[in-house]
């Protein structure tokens, strides 16, 4: 305590901060890069292990003997797909009933304000419940497969083989007596929307935009969910997908268990397309070449906040869930259906052993490889290093913005009494103002679509983007054309922007810290791009400097930041070179992703749009305003 209160120590601290914040900032920024690489390396990331003893993966004799019936189901389903327009729910229900399960279906439809007039989406979920003999329906595990057809089938890969395998496994499961959790077999129509409709109905939550019929059959609390996407009988590897809505992740035990069972059954598990690395690969430069790329892919996916498969929506309801995505192999021989069936059996029998919910292992992690993990304790180090930069600079500006001590007049009615304090009366209203602007931006989409799309003949997506762009430009330009206050003393102007930037830096550090708790990757990526720019931005009188400064700030403004992230993804993972074509492509992807973020917010409670408009935008805006203060002398 003494250190922080004695005036002497104060002076030492302030002179240290003022002297060192620049070099230290550069060091920390470079350090953060190095640190994130190091934690992803073989040397620092720990080996995964099963933390929950009850799981005992692969310890039981497998009972799944043959997958001979899968091909028949699959072929029949494919012929039905060609015949019918939508999901062949009658046939699916019939098959479940044949097996002897309680079978139900659920209708749903979606209507939201951003819909095209003719694009009303409807669908049917089919599900069947295997009532466990050893429990009174208080706990359940979900086995889900999305039903795909038409364009989605081409884009995301077929799943009919997965549905067929589900039938085959259901036949096996119903004969067993050891189940202590109900198993819900769920065939989801229309991807995420169907999953959300089913989950809302299961948990009896109502939504304004998804209209669904109630479920006529229920079971207990869902302990875990496994989503299988299997395109074909020939599977090269199973890609395990974990990233859920808003960057939420399932318990690491679930992932580890799946990896372990895949290895046991001879199916190659991959994570973001990368399999388990060999010993040599891990030794070479500590494996950074491979691990860093996988981890970056993991982080970019998590940062997007979009679910990577329908398991992502289960996570929102506190259900640990995972997607196994089979990647078809090019070969013309071989059949991995049986092995995948064994993996699925193993997963369900392990989950069946659970005595408590998944809670033992990590919930906050990033994965550099299938058998390596980086826990929160390690990955927070680079985030911490990045956040120290604005904190230190904020502190430095706080010291700098301190008014010089002017001797008060003897009579106590000092005319300069206002100078004794910092210019909070300028900074606080600005702080409130930018947040009000953020709220306006957040609320604007509905307004623009409902009132302008028909007027200008735009589609709702275009209207939305145009509207947001208009508000964004308006709010931003407001500052550029503000009048410089000639009466103000130059010294005051100097203090003004310093204090405002101090506020902005501290607020940025706090909000990114909060964000890193929810979605580490988003916070880290935003920090990596914005922090250097925010650190150097300041008002200039020189026209060229001023313009350069503004351009730099614009580059890290939320919409362009989105483009930057998409470009980074394309260049690193798709091998695009930097060309005009790439830029155009990035632009169109960004244009498409903004409306989808808004719609997802309405349908699934996706927070990305809210985070951008209510947190990132005001934060950026404060730096923009602090760099637009005029009337400086330099």
């Amino acid at each position, binding site marked *: 305590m003494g250190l922080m209160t004695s*005036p002497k120590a104060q002076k030492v601290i302030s002179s240290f901060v003022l002297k060192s914040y620049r070099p230290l900032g550069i060091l920390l920024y470079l350090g953060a890069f190095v640190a994130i690489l190091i934690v992803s390396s073989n040397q620092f990331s720990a080996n995964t292990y099963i933390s929950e003893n009850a799981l005992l993966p692969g310890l039981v004799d497998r009972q799944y003997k043959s997958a001979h019936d899968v091909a028949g189901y699959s072929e029949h389903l494919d012929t039905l797909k060609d015949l019918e327009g939508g999901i062949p729910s009658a046939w699916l229900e019939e098959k479940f009933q044949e097996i002897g399960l309680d079978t139900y279906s659920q209708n749903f439809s979606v209507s939201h304000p951003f819909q095209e007039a003719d694009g009303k989406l409807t669908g049917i979920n089919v599900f069947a419940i295997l009532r466990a003999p050893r429990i009174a329906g208080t706990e359940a595990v979900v086995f889900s497969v999305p039903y795909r057809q038409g364009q989605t089938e081409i884009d995301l890969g077929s799943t009919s083989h997965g549905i067929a395998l589900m039938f085959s496994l259901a036949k096996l499961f119903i004969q067993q007596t050891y189940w202590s959790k109900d198993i819900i077999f769920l065939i989801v129509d229309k991807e995420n929307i169907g999953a959300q409709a089913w989950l809302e109905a299961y948990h009896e939550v109502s939504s304004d935009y998804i209209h669904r019929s109630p479920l006529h059959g229920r079971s207990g609390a869902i302990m875990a969910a496994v989503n299988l996407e299997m395109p074909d009988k020939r599977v090269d590897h199973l890609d395990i997908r974990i990233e859920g809505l808003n960057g939420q992740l399932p318990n690491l035990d679930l992932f580890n268990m799946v990896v372990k069972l895949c290895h046991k059954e001879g199916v190659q598990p991959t994570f973001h397309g990368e399999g388990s690395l060999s010993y040599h690969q891990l030794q070479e430069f500590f494996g950074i070449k491979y691990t860093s790329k996988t981890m970056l892919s993991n982080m970019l996916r998590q940062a997007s906040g979009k679910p990577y498969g329908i398991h992502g929506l289960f996570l929102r309801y*506190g259900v640990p869930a995972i997607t196994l995505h089979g990647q078809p192999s090019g070969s013309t021989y071989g059949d991995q259906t049986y092995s995948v069936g064994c993996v699925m059996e193993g997963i369900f029998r392990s989950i069946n052993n659970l005595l408590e919910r998944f809670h033992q292992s990590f919930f906050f992690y990033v994965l550099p490889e299938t058998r390596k993990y980086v826990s929160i304790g390690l990955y927070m180090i680079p985030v911490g290093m990045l956040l120290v930069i604005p904190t230190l600079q904020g502190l430095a500006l706080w010291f700098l913005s301190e008014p010089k*001590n002017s001797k008060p007049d003897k009579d106590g*009615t*000092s005319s300069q009494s206002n100078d004794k304090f910092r210019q909070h009366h300028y900074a606080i209203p600005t702080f409130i103002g930018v947040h009000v602007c953020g709220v306006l931006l957040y609320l604007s989409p509905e307004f623009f679509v409902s009132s302008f799309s028909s007027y200008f003949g735009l589609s709702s997506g275009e209207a939305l983007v145009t509207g947001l762009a208009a508000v964004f430009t308006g709010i931003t330009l407001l500052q550029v054309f503000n009048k410089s206050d000639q009466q103000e003393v130059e010294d005051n102007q100097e203090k003004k922007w310093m204090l405002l930037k101090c506020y902005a830096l501290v607020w940025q550090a706090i909000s990114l810290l*909060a964000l890193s708790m929810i979605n580490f990757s988003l916070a880290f990526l935003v920090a990596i791009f914005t922090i250097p720019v925010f650190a150097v931005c300041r008002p200039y009188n020189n026209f060229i400097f001023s313009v350069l400064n503004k351009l730099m700030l614009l580059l890290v403004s939320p919409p362009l930041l989105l483009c930057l992230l998409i470009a980074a993804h394309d260049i690193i993972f798709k091998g695009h070179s930097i060309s005009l074509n790439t830029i155009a492509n990035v632009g169109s992807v960004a244009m498409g992703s903004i409306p989808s973020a808004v719609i997802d917010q309405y349908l699934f409670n996706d927070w990305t749009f809210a985070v951008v408009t209510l947190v990132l935008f005001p934060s950026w805006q404060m730096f923009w305003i602090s760099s637009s203060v005029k009337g400086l002398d330099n």
Partner: protein
Amino acid sequence: MAASIVWITLLGILSRVIILGSHFSNVLSDRVELSTPLTSWKRMTEGMFLIKNGISPYLGDNFHEPPLLLYFFTIMDNTTPALIPLVFLFLDLTTAFLLYRVAKYLLRYLLSEQIKEGPSYAKDVDVLLLKRSSLSSIPTLVLSIYLLNPFSILTCSAQSTIIITNVLVTATFLLTLKGQWWSATLSLALASYQSLYPVMLIVPCAMHVANLKMQENKESISYSSPTAVTIMLKIALSFLLWSVILITLSFLMLESWDFLQSTYGFILSVPDLKPNLGLFWYYFMEMFEHFRIFFLWVFQMNAFIYTIPLTIILWKCPSFVFFCQLVLIAIFKSYPSLGDITVYLALLPVWSHTFHYLRNGLVVSVMIVISTVLAPVLWHLWIYAGSANANFFFAFTLIYNTAQVYRHCRAVESL
């Protein structure tokens, strides 16, 4: 000045009305940071429902407000239910204006003290002296801090009944400063009748009134002089009298003593361990049952015992003791919420002239901001997402309380 007061008041009213009118009010009243089991509006409606159906709400485990308040709101609900949010708005505004008056009286008092003692001050203390100009600016600052503080806006919008304690405590402060001890003890009795802890404010209250009396009689200040002893005894007795009247009245209305156990017993024995911003829930959740009584004493003592050293050291300025006691209550009470700190936060500028050497304002404010931003985030991760756990949330309530303690120590030190 007057114009800015009007604008600030309008802004304060507008922000409260907007939130009170929207569906956020419902969301807010469920937040643990704003509503505790003692002050939650939901529990009040539960109590009103029970009493309307002829069941005593004190037999159950849900309702902990005192009977008179319950009857007041029941009558309101029966006659004009639409006015209830307006009652909260009105009470909050009253608090703000009482604070304004408190700041005015207090500054005038401090200035007169300063003038009286002026000659005895050392040289070079100019920077620490109160200026006459702050007499007009600081009360406005106090008013605007209270009205525009997001904590008080949210508390008011969540219809937390802590608003009522706040208005009563502020009224006590004002009446004490005016020296009207008869009504001061009434409002103090009402405040302690609702939430018990303000009972400790009787000490600075009595001291200040005695102080005023001695100044009136032109005596030197000594709390053992007959004038002081008589007036202090009178205040203690009148407080007791008011309290007895209130409790008897409650008994007569309910015709049972159940309410004592489920209000004051509930505050003191802390049976409800629902997480909040305080320190109790986490410790008592972890604790073995046979240590419980001991630690209850230890924890509850904190709220009361510091009055003694504070009065010994700061006997010259009981008004500051009053302020300190408010802070201590906010930190150490068993079910604290953000609504507890709004009153003393607003009063902070009154002593701003002594803050010249007060440092770390940035550190402390950032700590409080961090904890209020991160507590809901971690609450979400713990309760809804199921990925974090109680430790995460508790870490930030610890930061919140550390910041308060730290700031308070600095404030006491700088005086």
